[in-house]
């Protein structure tokens, strides 16, 4: 199960990209912002794409009563996420090494993937909760109050993924480099499961 083990190790290591590159990116363009404002969401905090983007997004959001974008210490997630990811990397690498040595079944790789997926979905769920709060928990004294066509107050939740038009802004929310590395890593682990399976079979057939 040498190949599968190596794939498992590489796949888990790819998650380390999240410590260097953003997981997610949200860009806000508008007629007045030909050079769009943007935020990069890292597992340990939110940063502007350009140096003063966060300040400028906050400045715009205060008109419609949105809270300011949380600083790193203001969300427990930014404490916990790095630990979870690091834990998963260590676990994945260990599984890979043990698998490489042929001491455990390839099914453990699938187990890691399922755990990672569950954690990922939980993370997305949590992220979406924050987006909902951020976009709809508005200051009652907001300068500008817009309503939906049905009369209910307008909310400004950015899309979890994809494109959305919000007032004068075009909002794009997509995975970023760190996110893509994580998906690639998870895909590699998925592949390692099948490689491990075929390696196991050929071993058994011999």
């Amino acid at each position, binding site marked *: 199960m040498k190949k599968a083990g190596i794939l498992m190790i590489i796949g888990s290591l790819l998650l380390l990209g999240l410590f260097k590159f953003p997981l997610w990116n949200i860009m806000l363009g508008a007629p007045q912002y030909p*050079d769009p404002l943007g935020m990069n969401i890292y597992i340990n905090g939110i940063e502007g794409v350009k*140096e*003063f983007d966060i*300040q*400028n997004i906050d*400045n715009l959001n205060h*008109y419609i009563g949105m809270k300011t974008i949380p600083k790193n210490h203001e969300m427990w997630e930014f404490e916990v996420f790095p630990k979870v990811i690091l834990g998963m990397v260590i676990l994945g690498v260990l599984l890979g090494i043990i698998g490489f040595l042929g001491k455990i079944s390839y099914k453990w790789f699938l187990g890691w993937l399922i755990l990672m997926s569950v954690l990922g979905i939980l993370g997305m769920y949590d992220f979406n909760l924050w987006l909902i709060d951020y976009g709809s928990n508005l200051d009652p004294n907001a*300068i*500008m109050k817009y309503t939906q066509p049905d009369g209910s107050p307008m909310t400004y939740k950015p899309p979890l993924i994809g494109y959305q038009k919000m007032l004068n802004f075009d909002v794009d929310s997509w995975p970023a480099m760190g996110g893509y590395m994580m998906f690639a890593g998870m895909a590699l682990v998925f592949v390692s499961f099948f490689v491990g399976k075929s390696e196991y079979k050929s071993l058994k057939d011999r």
Partner: protein
Amino acid sequence: MKKTIQYLFSLVLIAGLVSCNNGDNQKKLRGQGGLATNAAERVYVAPGEHDEYYGFFSGGFSGQLGVYGLPSGRLLKVLPVFSQNPENGWGYTEETKPMLNTSFGFVPWDDSHHPDISQTDGVLDGRWIFINGNNTPRIARIGLETFKTEEIIEIPNSAGNHSSSFITENTEYVVAGTRFSIPVPQRDMSIKEYKGNFKGALTFISVDQETGRMAIKFQLMMPGFNYDLSHPGRDKSHGWFFFTTYNTEESHTLLEVNASQNDKDFIAAVNWKKIEEYVNNGGGKMTPTRYAHNVMDMDSHVATSTIIEEVLTVDPLDVPGAVFFLPTPKSPHGCDVDPTGEYIIGNGKLSADLTVHSFTKMLDAIENEKFDGEAYGIPILNFEDILAGVVKQPGLGPLHTEFDDKGNAYTTFFISSEVVKWKVGTWEVLDRQPVFYSVGHGMIPGGNSRKPFGKYFVAMNKITKDRYLPTGPELTHSAQLFDITGDKMELLLDFPTIGEPHYAAAIPAEIIKDKSKQFYRLSDNKHPHATLKSSDVRIERNGKEVHVYMTIIRSHFNPDNIEGIKVGDKVYFHVTNLEQDFDVPHGFATIGANNAEMLIMPGATETLVWEPKQVGVWPFYCTDFCSALHQEMQGYVRVSPADSNLPLSWSVGED
């Protein structure tokens, strides 16, 4: 005889045909030169697209510098330089007032003439642009990252700073020559004693290559002629500087007649490297004088003015072999050197021919002492021995010559109102195009450097007449853009300018546009009265002086309610713009301000003084539409009687 009659007959026929055509088309032909059919397409810059060149056009008597896009001719910005500008507070705010200080006190105006862009190895590098004030002799340096006037230096012993501000090919020196000679030092004397007693100062101002900071290195005290224009040597003639002169007659009255008598005036050739060496070895004489040196500190945006009380003067006779006169026919105006540095063109404005001197021949004449007398001890070189050639009868009233990158020269003719293209070296006229009307300078981007960008030629015209919709007796001056990529020049566009564009300098946009600053970093703001965070907002009284430390951000002032101000106070509003985004300036204006409003760029601090004269509650507001809540960006100052005991108080957002 019969043949002659036939000729005459056919001439009449042709004349008839031409005049029939002209009847309808004269207006149209005149406007387009009859050639350019797709001219509109070639100057059209679609909405949102950028021009290919930045063009910097002197504002003449406006004292400013106009920034235009070429080829569209669109005005991008008027940069305030020598004149107060209520539009943004230049020369009115406490920070910028020192920039307009001179030895004559505060001079809020000037006559700006000749912009020149900094160079490295004779090629435009886009670090700075320099421009001269002609009236109260000054040279300004404008940074091309901020497009802001960063420094102004006054030129002492000078009057009519016209043969300025031209720079040597590594921006070692900015050179300023005096058009009017004067007594040096100034004294009470009879004007009639001008001849032999007045002096003409040619000033060499060194430029620090890192900061751009200017300092007068030396002044060459020349005979009392009028030093009209100048040009540095290029490439092989680098190290020399050439100045045209008129009034070598040294007349002091009715110059239009009396200064036009000599058959030849001079181009003064100055070997500045030789004089620099002389000065570096302790040569020259420190002479008492007074001039202002004004510097804008770009970290604080606060200008300071220093009066300097001496200048190093050099008598040309003390540096043998450094200064020579090249005889040049009839009151030469423009003095231009071709990109190779070999040819020195004297545009004799009262001559019908263009005289071209050879640099190689000049060196040879100096070497072999081919002199034709002297003037005040300065050798005059023999005209025939230095002559490279003559462009024969190209037009009337040649003023200025620029060059393209294909060995062609373009000379403007004021009297015959045309631009003439001729070949450097063969002196043959290749093309001529009329201009509307009476062109002064012409400009090709980089056309006075070693590397011209020979795509466009811009004529800056002195007379406008009927070119635009009439606006009463006072008209704008006009510029005209020609395409010079083909054999014939093609007129593409007319565009109006600010003040009077004497000369212009243009540079490919890509050299500077990406360096253009978008805003100032608040964390770099070193202004002594900056308020960088809301907790530092305050008001302090010191006798009758009140200092308001105010911040602004979309869309409120902090504070916006001020009480405790009294009639007779002098209120300093130190306003800091906390924005850190591109194109979010705020304005500040108070009712009854006796100065101006001011614009504060993001990250900067500016100060406006307000002296309330009437009791009441008076508003202030933001003048630059900054956001959807711009109209709400306002505040009140309560002004109490002079003897009131109301303490100072301030707030924002309190009931």
